[in-house]
């Protein structure tokens, strides 16, 4: 008897969850992954936090489509994906500074960021490029069918964990939507991403490993973001930072935002998928308030570091967070 009901329930259940609504990935883009807020309490295992690189833009994308703000979204870098949609009307939104097009049956429209829109069966979203920035987000109004590991779907391609079998998007794959949001009201936010070149830092625990000249170089000179930059780290080029104590330290934990200087004198900033242990001296740490802006600096961008103290950094974070909350509450 129980078995009978169980079978009936399973049958019923299967019917509901079979995905009739899906996106087909026609072009995967350079580095497209699923991201959410990331996973905690795993540094000691060797697994970094991961999660959306630019948290503010990630949260806003979800809010624009009426999702819970910590729902999974697609993160893309430089050139994004080309997606074709099949199914019932669905609401999407793109955030960042993105050049994209919506191809409908007879018409192609230039897309607007921070504005949700509806897609019909057969429509295409073509994310051409991020304008003088790195990351953008595409939120889908509904529930994406994804694998969670340690309560997060964030894809970490190094440890091969998270959604999409721990891999970045590939051509021809499918994104299944298990449930659509009921309301697909189009929403809009007036917001322009500002770009900053001055990144504020707090002195690192090995600040005194560097000569007075080295410290000055770090805090006064301009650096350029190199091409060797990804979700793990950002390598900078420019004047060499002189070390006078030791170019190695005993390996110890890392967190995102740490600026290490290896023997070659070129700083490396740890980003969200960083290795959890490192052995290079830490000259500084980017303040939490500036992290979202830092990750958006594309290769070739100028960057200058400015030192602040701990209490200023804490206040700046409060302000930044308040601003994010205000933006979220403006979307209704």
């Amino acid at each position: 008897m129980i078995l009978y009901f169980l079978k009936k329930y399973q049958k019923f259940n299967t019917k509901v969850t079979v995905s009739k609504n899906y996106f087909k990935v026609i072009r995967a883009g350079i580095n497209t992954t699923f991201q959410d807020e990331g996973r905690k309490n795993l540094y000691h295992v060797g697994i970094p936090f991961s999660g959306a690189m630019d948290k503010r833009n990630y949260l806003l994308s979800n809010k624009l489509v009426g999702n819970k703000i910590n729902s999974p979204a697609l993160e893309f870098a430089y050139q994004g994906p080309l997606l074709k949609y099949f199914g019932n009307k669905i609401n999407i939104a793109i955030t960042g500074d993105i050049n994209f097009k919506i191809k409908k049956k007879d018409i192609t429209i230039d897309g607007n960021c921070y504005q949700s829109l509806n897609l019909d069966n057969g429509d295409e979203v073509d994310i051409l490029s991020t304008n003088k920035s790195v990351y953008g987000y595409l939120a889908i109004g509904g529930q994406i069918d994804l694998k969670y590991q340690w309560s997060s779907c964030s894809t970490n391609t190094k440890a091969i964990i998270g959604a999409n079998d721990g891999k970045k998007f590939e051509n021809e794959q499918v994104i299944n939507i298990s449930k659509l949001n009921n309301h697909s009201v189009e929403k809009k936010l007036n917001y322009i991403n500002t770009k900053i070149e001055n990144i504020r830092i707090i002195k690192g625990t090995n600040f005194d490993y560097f000569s007075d000249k080295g410290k000055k170089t770090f805090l006064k000179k301009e650096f350029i973001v190199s091409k060797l930059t990804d979700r793990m780290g950002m390598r900078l080029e420019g004047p060499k930072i002189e070390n006078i104590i030791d170019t190695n330290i005993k390996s110890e934990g890392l967190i995102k935002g740490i600026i290490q200087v290896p023997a070659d004198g070129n700083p490396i900033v740890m980003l969200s998928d960083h290795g959890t242990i490192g052995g290079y001296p830490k000259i500084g740490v980017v303040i939490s308030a500036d992290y979202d802006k830092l990750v958006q600096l594309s290769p070739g961008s100028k960057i200058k570091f400015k030192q602040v103290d701990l209490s200023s950094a804490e206040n700046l974070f409060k302000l930044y967070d308040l601003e994010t909350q205000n933006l979220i509450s403006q979307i209704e």
Partner: protein
Amino acid sequence: MIKNILNLGDAALYCDFGKEVNRETNTQVIRYFKSIQKENIVSINNLSPSYNKLIISFDLKKTNFKDLKKLIENLNITNEDDLENKKIEIPVCCDENFALDIVRLEKKLNLKREKIYENFFDKEFFCYMTGFIAGMPFLGDLSENMRAKRLETPRIKVPKGSVALTEQFANIYTFESPGGWNVIGNSPLRIFDSSKEESPNLINPGDIVFFKEISKIQYESYSE
């Protein structure tokens, strides 16, 4: 005991346990790590124990450096000898195809390979920490005559399973990864398993590790 707590950026505590890298200092670090873990402090995002440091990163929306520092300083840390030391045996095949740097080590250490392997397989190792890449154990200590520096030019790809040495430490590459350690063999054992969310790492800080030599045939027929 913690000698000093500094801030690392605006959202982490940097707890220093002293300059020396030895089992005694590291055992202190692991004690603090396990005690804090048990407290389930919601504002803490991550704990990173290493040889002689413990980094505690936190959610700046929930607490700040000053408050969390006070909380950590006032914690009751279990000082009894209650740390579990699991003993783990790791099979290693030292076939020439796996032992990528054995010739280099023979030169650097001025030891014949037979002697290098004898020293290595006789040793009992202690796991100081895990990380860099998921599940990678940092094992010590190699005797003085076994200590070699990293490769001058690191490899772009060290094969998964590689067992490698540098300075007083041995490690196992849980994934294919860039790296500069001296590779002496390869283990078929799965050291990191992401499907086991409760304990993905086979080897954890405080564990004791032995290596056991296996033949190429045993390696190839190895099943987990």
